[in-house]
């Protein structure tokens, strides 16, 4: 199975390498799509990881035990389809190219799997159809 995970850290565990632990202790290969450290040494990291459910659960448990806050991202970006008028304002600003035009109807599609939860699109939408839930 594939999971998209958000890990929040603070100044106490900012020095620990999440990716290193996942790789050496669990043989997982996380693909880090976003990492951010704030001035106060808090920050967040978002990665995508493939593996057996049991193994993933164990690995996440290990991260939690180290003081990281760990959350699965599922519906991290949502779009109210009835509000969306397919203007396209979100299309060219998304860093992960998660929005595309349908070549036939020119309706705007959102691919949540590629979304890295950056939040950039939220303010680009003039009808408040997009919501970031992280």
């Amino acid at each position, binding site marked *: 199975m594939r999971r998209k995970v958000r890990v929040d850290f603070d100044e106490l565990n900012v020095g620990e390498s999440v990716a290193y632990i996942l790789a050496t202790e669990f043989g997982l290969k996380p693909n880090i799509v976003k990492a951010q450290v704030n001035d106060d040494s808090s920050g967040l990291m978002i990665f995508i990881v493939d593996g057996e459910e049991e193994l993933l659960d164990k690995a996440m448990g290990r991260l939690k035990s180290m003081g990281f806050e760990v959350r699965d991202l599922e519906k991290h970006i949502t779009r109210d389809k009835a509000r969306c*008028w*397919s*203007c*396209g*304002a*979100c*299309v*060219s*600003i998304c860093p992960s190219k998660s*929005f595309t*035009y*349908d070549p036939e*109807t*020119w*309706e*705007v599609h959102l691919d949540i799997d590629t979304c890295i939860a950056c939040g*950039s699109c939220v*303010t*680009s939408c*003039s*009808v*408040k159809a997009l919501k970031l839930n992280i």
Partner: protein
Amino acid sequence: MAKTYEEINEKIRSKKAVVCTAEEVVDLVRKKGVEKAAEEVDVVTTGTFGAMCSSGAFLNFGHSTPPIRMTNILLNGVQAYGGLAAVDTYIGATQMTEDSEKGYGGAHVIEDLIAGKDIHLRATGPGTDCYVRKEIDTYVSLDDLNEAYLYNPRNSYQNYGVATNTSDKALYTYMGKLLPKMKNASYSSAGQLSPLLNDPHCDVIGIGTRIFLGGGEGYVSWQGTQFKTDVEEVGGVPVAGARTLAVIGDMKQMDPYYVRGLDIHGYGISLALGIGVPLPILDEGVMARAAVSDEDLFAEMLDYSLPSGRVPMARYSYAQLRSGKIEYQGKTIRTSSMSSYAGAKKVAQELKDRIERGEFLLNAPSLMLPKAGSVKPLKVREARRCAER
């Protein structure tokens, strides 16, 4: 072979009219040629669905007992004009609520009215011998109003510049979010579907032309404000903003799908509106112009980080713009639009369906739009003395 409005309307009435959208007609003309296509097709439908800031609605509330002469009017907290007769008002699309945090404005009041929602009306007046009431606080819906019609002084811009940003910080504009260092560019025209790009010199669109406006029937009422003709053309079509339309239409016929309040981050309120204009294929000339495709239509890229004096940086076809990326000095810029091409397609298709069903007849203009026009800038100057006037 020339056709007349009456002949076309006769075919529409008997449900025999051949109607194509401005998109469909591109291929038809490529395959069959202009002459054959002009013979076969009676009407080409165009469409656009974009932010049209210069829009608003005239409303009449009817008289209360006792009556009031409203001079200060709020609709869901949005100021409407109080300088008309007692219970008439005009609500402008871009007017914001006092609480600008809310992201609600005149355009949303218009959308909510068309959606049949109750609107909170609060008004005050001076109280006069003939209008004794001084204040009123009530709710109104579209059904309660005597008249409600959009009257938009400038809609359906013929063409529009492509916005980019060369500066180091993101800009929030009416053309959307513009990323720093030209990472993206935003355009705003339905290109080959756009009404005024398919009749570039307004040979058939004129005052009185019946149009699709926000889901109902409307009319071209005048040339739009900032109507200009002295714009560079490629293949007979302007490459920048040129002609515009003033339009009018009954809100009671409209559909909220095609009339939407927008809150454009960092800019303000605007109205997204679907407009479609049917073009009567009176002769080959009309047909040839309506068959224009995105490959032949161009727009110029402008740097929105400059406050004014924006010089065109490059020119792109709508086919390039719609491909999702353009090149500028060896750099790839991602593109997307600020107007809905999906919506423009729906408008043109819906108008086509109505004409095919015999429900929408063409109206010949009673007056053509000006053949020449230019736009003057606003000068900051001292008052002239009487003798100089």
